């Protein structure tokens, strides 16, 4: 059963040098309240796993603006000047990953698989330095699972068992990240009693959730 804690406590759990997955797509479906607390704490040398770098004043971009990440695995950083500057100056190391591959590598970790065999990136720079397997005459890049110490996700509603439902496109990477980190913290707009979410409608089963924050 997950613990219900406040955002400040959640932020204090995150230590330097830890790997963090943040659910977010251009700051939609992002745990902004927890991020604000991590900004306040100023925890440094974090590793970012996120679809994109969001905006300088929204989403994970707020942490990037404060230079709290030393490295990142993302699919896009075109919307945030902070990371672009740090990237150009060599202040942050970035692995650029096709978005579908990023999602699937995270899923592989969550589902106990050894990697992903994808055609995406064949014949491009993405292929460089990776094994390419030929299976029944077709080529696939072997991409390795991505793990993290923490997933910090955003859902619309949680019951006290940690069962989650999301809101529209704020769902994005949150459900898959919930499966792949050592510990999962979810920020929700509403906490309801056990039994108040229809069992058919649960998107993320509570088994994946360790901490719930109401914000």
């Amino acid at each position, binding site marked *: *059963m997950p613990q219900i804690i406040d955002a400040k406590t959640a932020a204090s759990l995150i230590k330097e040098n830890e790997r963090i997955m943040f659910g977010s797509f251009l700051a939609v479906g992002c745990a902004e309240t927890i991020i604000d607390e991590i900004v306040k704490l100023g925890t440094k040398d974090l590793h970012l796993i996120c679809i994109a770098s969001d905006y300088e004043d929204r989403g994970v971009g707020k942490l990037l603006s404060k230079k709290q990440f030393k490295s990142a695995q993302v699919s896009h950083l075109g919307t945030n000047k902070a990371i672009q500057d740090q990237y150009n100056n060599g202040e942050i190391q970035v692995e650029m990953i096709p978005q579908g591959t990023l999602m699937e590598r995270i*899923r592989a*970790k*969550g*589902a*106990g*698989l050894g990697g992903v065999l994808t055609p995406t990136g064949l014949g491009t720079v993405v292929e460089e330095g990776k094994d390419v397997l030929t299976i029944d005459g077709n080529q696939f890049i072997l991409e390795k699972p991505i793990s993290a110490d923490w997933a910090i996700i955003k859902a619309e509603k949680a*019951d*006290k*068992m940690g*069962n989650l439902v999301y809101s529209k496109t704020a769902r994005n990477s949150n459900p898959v990240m919930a*499966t792949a980190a050592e510990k999962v913290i979810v920020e929700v707009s509403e906490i309801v009693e*056990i*039994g108040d*979410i229809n*069992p*058919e409608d*649960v998107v993320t*089963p*509570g*088994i*994946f959730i360790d901490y719930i924050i109401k914000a």
Partner: protein
Amino acid sequence: MDRNDKNYKRTLIGKRIAKELKDGDWCNLGIGLPTEVANHIPEGTSVFFQTENGMMGVGPAPAQGEEDKDLINAGGGFITAIPGACYFDSCISFGIIRGGHLDMTVLGGLQVDEQGNLANWMIPGKMVPGMGGAMDLVTGAKKVVVAMEHTDKHGNAKLLKNCCLPLTAKEKVNLIVTDMAVIEIKDKRMHLIEIAEGLTVDDVIKATEPELVLPKEIKYFSI
């Protein structure tokens, strides 16, 4: 009490395994003997049971006439859903299993050996029903507990130096609970943890093929 009574053995084993579960644990019980565990969860302890066909939060069997045709467990029996239950597809269900998210799985066994190998799905020459979800469960759960009788119906050991039946999974078993003993597998040795009340260490040694690592002090478990 009749030590050879099936129901006695079933209760003894189920009750002992239930003690391995902590409040808030997520667990999968195999069909047959392992399902007995659910009947012995201590008052005040919440344990959530998965059924791999796609649900977390399995409740007790429904009253007769209250069965829901769409609500069954992995053995095909009718079940109920506890408050807080949720449904998911088989792919997500085995993601939970293979991904190491279950605190414990309990399965029956034909043979277990010192390496932690388990054989429980196939007897050569006999009809092979299939492994179903057993291989995934034994491979993926954080703690793998085997629930079985200590010897077969001819009195032959089922705890062996090396399994001779086809394996379900390699080096994955953590704990064996039988009608005679609780045995932990660690560093490729069988460690005797507890023995059933009324038995001696010698009784267990005789019924077990590999050498047992004995505890400093003998503890007992009972029905």
